[in-house]
């Protein structure tokens, strides 16, 4: 009996290892394992701090509108929360798509935060403070976001191509410049004296339609999330199925070979940085002119940095980024609610994001270990089959494997 149980355990372990190492399934299985490891580690840390990890997780899910909260403000319910969650997930998704494109070209765009801020700022000035109607204002906001983000990205790429200035340096500098220049203008000309942030943009220009009622419940419709998901599929198509994508990836993996094959490497560096900026711009407008309608001066959005974790968690795949950004947003979005309702520090959200990044970065290693386990298991199994004359001996061999 005992033997059977042990055998079953080994079979389960083998099945998991197979899932983790197999080319097809590992892309999904390893991120899931990273998530589980993150949750377990967080739980242990919370227990040490004397908090209940279950309450914390439930709190995050409640804040995101996945499960009902114990009580709601008047005319709000779970659906209200869920739509808000989608509204803040959209910029996260856009930003991580932007990071993925630069990453595929072998570039590291750490300037997403700055690109978000400047495109949000300029779109607010040009459209948010105008009296254009929604049918004109919303497309214009998207367009301005793309153009402004794209220009900043293109400059970063151009400086790399022309003067060989590393894109990380340029984008960090841009982050500072954009942060303080926009901060100066907001504080000097556009500040709202009560909130100390910029004056609100018009409802017509926002990518989230607010103030709606459904059966008497307050709802807001984040148009940005629909666009973001569509763009994720578009980026995936671009990278996997098109000439442009192939050239960007070839440039990222081996510049020497790309050049040898006749690909214009400089053009592709600029192209990738521009596209990355365009997507960061979309993240910016869906953040400052969607989820919010105002800009806090001298503060870069955290999303620009969190998007790096999201991209890695999603295996640098645009479709993976949809799930990864949903997950990271659950934690980032829920931190305030969790801290106010349970007393667990807000910083737990950032802790979880950090752990996710850490474990995701171990994906290749996990896959390698699992692959090794599978091979060893199969070897022993083969050895056992060979020893047909003593079946029981073979069985012992396999059983002994767990200790190996």
């Amino acid at each position, binding site marked *: 009996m005992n033997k059977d149980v042990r055998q079953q355990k080994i079979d389960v372990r083998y099945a998991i290892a197979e899932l983790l190492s197999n080319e097809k399934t590992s892309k999904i299985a390893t991120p899931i394992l990273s998530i589980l490891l993150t949750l377990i580690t967080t739980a242990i840390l919370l227990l040490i701090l004397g908090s209940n990890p279950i309450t914390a997780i439930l709190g995050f899910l409640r804040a995101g509108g996945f499960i009902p909260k114990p009580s709601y403000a008047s005319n709000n319910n779970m659906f209200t929360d869920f739509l808000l969650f989608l509204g803040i997930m959209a910029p996260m998704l856009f930003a991580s798509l932007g990071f993925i494109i630069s990453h595929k070209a072998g570039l590291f765009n750490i300037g997403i935060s700055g690109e978000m801020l400047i495109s949000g700022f300029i779109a607010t000035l040009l459209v948010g403070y105008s009296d254009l109607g929604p049918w004109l204002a919303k497309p214009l906001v998207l367009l301005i976001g793309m153009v402004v983000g794209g220009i900043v990205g293109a400059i970063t790429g151009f400086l790399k191509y022309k003067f060989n200035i590393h894109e990380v340096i340029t984008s960090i500098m841009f982050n500072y410049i954009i942060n303080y220049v926009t901060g100066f203008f907001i504080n000097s000309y556009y500040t709202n004296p009560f909130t100390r942030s910029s004056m609100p943009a018009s409802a017509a220009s926002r990518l989230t339609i607010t103030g709606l009622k459904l059966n008497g419940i307050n709802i807001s419709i984040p148009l940005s999330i629909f666009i973001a998901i569509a763009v994720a599929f578009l980026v995936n198509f671009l990278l996997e199925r*098109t000439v442009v994508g192939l050239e960007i990836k070839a440039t990222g993996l081996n510049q*020497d070979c790309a050049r*040898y094959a*006749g*690909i214009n490497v400089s053009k592709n560096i600029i192209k990738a940085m521009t596209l990355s900026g365009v997507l960061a711009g979309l993240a910016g407008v869906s953040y400052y002119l969607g989820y919010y309608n105002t800009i806090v001066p001298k503060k870069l959005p955290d999303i620009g940095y969190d998007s790096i974790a999201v991209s890695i968690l999603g295996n640098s795949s645009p479709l993976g980024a949809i799930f990864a950004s949903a997950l990271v947003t659950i934690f980032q979005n829920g931190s305030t609610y969790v801290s106010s309702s349970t007393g667990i520090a807000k910083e737990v959200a950032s802790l979880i994001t950090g752990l996710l990044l850490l474990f995701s970065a171990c994906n290749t290693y996990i896959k390698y270990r699992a692959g090794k386990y599978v091979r060893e298991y199969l*070897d022993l199994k083969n050895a056992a089959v060979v020893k047909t004359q003593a079946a029981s001996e073979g069985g012992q061999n396999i059983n002994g494997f767990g200790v190996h």
Partner: protein
Amino acid sequence: MLGKMDQYIVEMLNITKRFPGVVANDNVTLRIKQGEIFALLGENGAGKSTLMSLLFGLYEPDAGEIIVKGKKVHLSSAKDASKLGIGMVHQHFKLVPDYTIAENIILGDEPKRKLLGLIPYVDIKKANKEIEELSKFYKLEVDPTKLIKDVNVSVQQRVEILKMLYREADILIFDEPTAILTPQEIERLLETMRELRAKGKTIILITHKLEEIKKVADRCAILFQGKLVGVYDVATTSTQKMANLMVGREVVFAQKKEKDNFGEKVLEVKDLSVLNADKFEVVKNVSFSIRGGEIFAIAGVAGNGQVEIADAIAGLIKINKGKVFLKGKDITDYPIRDRLLEGISYIPEDRQKTGVILDFPLYFNLAIKNYFQKPFSEKGVLNQTVIKQFAQKLISKYDIRCGQAEMTLLRSMSGGNQQKAIVAREIEQNSALLIFVQPTRGLDIGAIENIHRRILEEREKGKAILLISLELDEIMKLADTIGVIYNGELLKIAPAKDFTINEVGQFMMGVKGA
């Protein structure tokens, strides 16, 4: 020395090692005697390097056992191997370019002293002295204070050997040590090996060059597709027999070359001058032309500007002065892609760095020169079916061996098959001009034979071929016309039949008017 010959210093018994999709070593048993030069012979992918990596602790065997100096050992890292006195010179050196020779040698095992009895520091003076003595003793002269980046590859290799000797290794593994050396340097290395043997070291030599084995080795083990064919006494086994056993079939050393039938001028290079990154003129006023059906070979010692000529024609480096004409058209100022489309195929010197993208699957690598054209893509969208079918066609036509067909990552293929893939791709471009730079470097006999046959086939199809090689034998065998380069200048251009191998060798050394 002879008394010890019967003792086995290394025994590898029934070793099996698997990688996804391949059995790299299948039940291999080797017994190596103390103080002998033991050669390991086999084609690329035959499992030689894997077997030695097992002995060096880089991998662990799936089955079998390793006995070193009479004791069963379990090697799980290079450190373990090092403790047992096993050292390895890898094909690609592992040296820090900005450190001196002495610093590289002592790295990880530094002689230390304490300043004022307290603060530890590395006693570099002592190291320099020790290394000088060591290098004299083994006749491996180096200047310990020179920086690695300032010395050439053969000196770097000596540093790698000294690194092992400094750690008192007595089992020395050499992985394809001659692949990067010139003929003179090879002679010198073989002499070093004999010297080391005389001093009682055991040497394991991984190679596929039969002449070298003939020259230095005592015994040789032949591997074929992961299995041990046998262990032979080098003195009593003919080169032809070794070659056949290694390739698993009859090898044709001399290939038939059709009579020449030259067509029109395809490539013309006029007064070409090229500067390197330091603005130094590495190609000086080079002029030559190649006709259809002609193999024009540039012979020369490495680093005399021959690779720059190829790069300049293909557009990879800027032309300083002079003109390049292809089929009568001036392509001097064309961007790279336009040149390729005009009819240039290029097999580059460094296949892994330039020729392929290691992390792309085979089918993308095979299509990297065509993906933007119809029918590979239309309106910017790739046609995966066409690209994959093209890859399948090339895989079978050129006998490219790969574990997972067209989906195989280039990284997981052997060097010979990577080269076959590049050659397949470039020949399929059907260009008027084919440039081959060191096409058989580091390849085994089977693969060399295959690539030589392809080059001759292209010649018969009337293609103009520029062959740049460091192997004189290869040049003498294939070329119709030979140009000898020395210090960036083409010293002499003449039909191959007017040259003897010695004359070419003299021009290569810069002796004018020989």
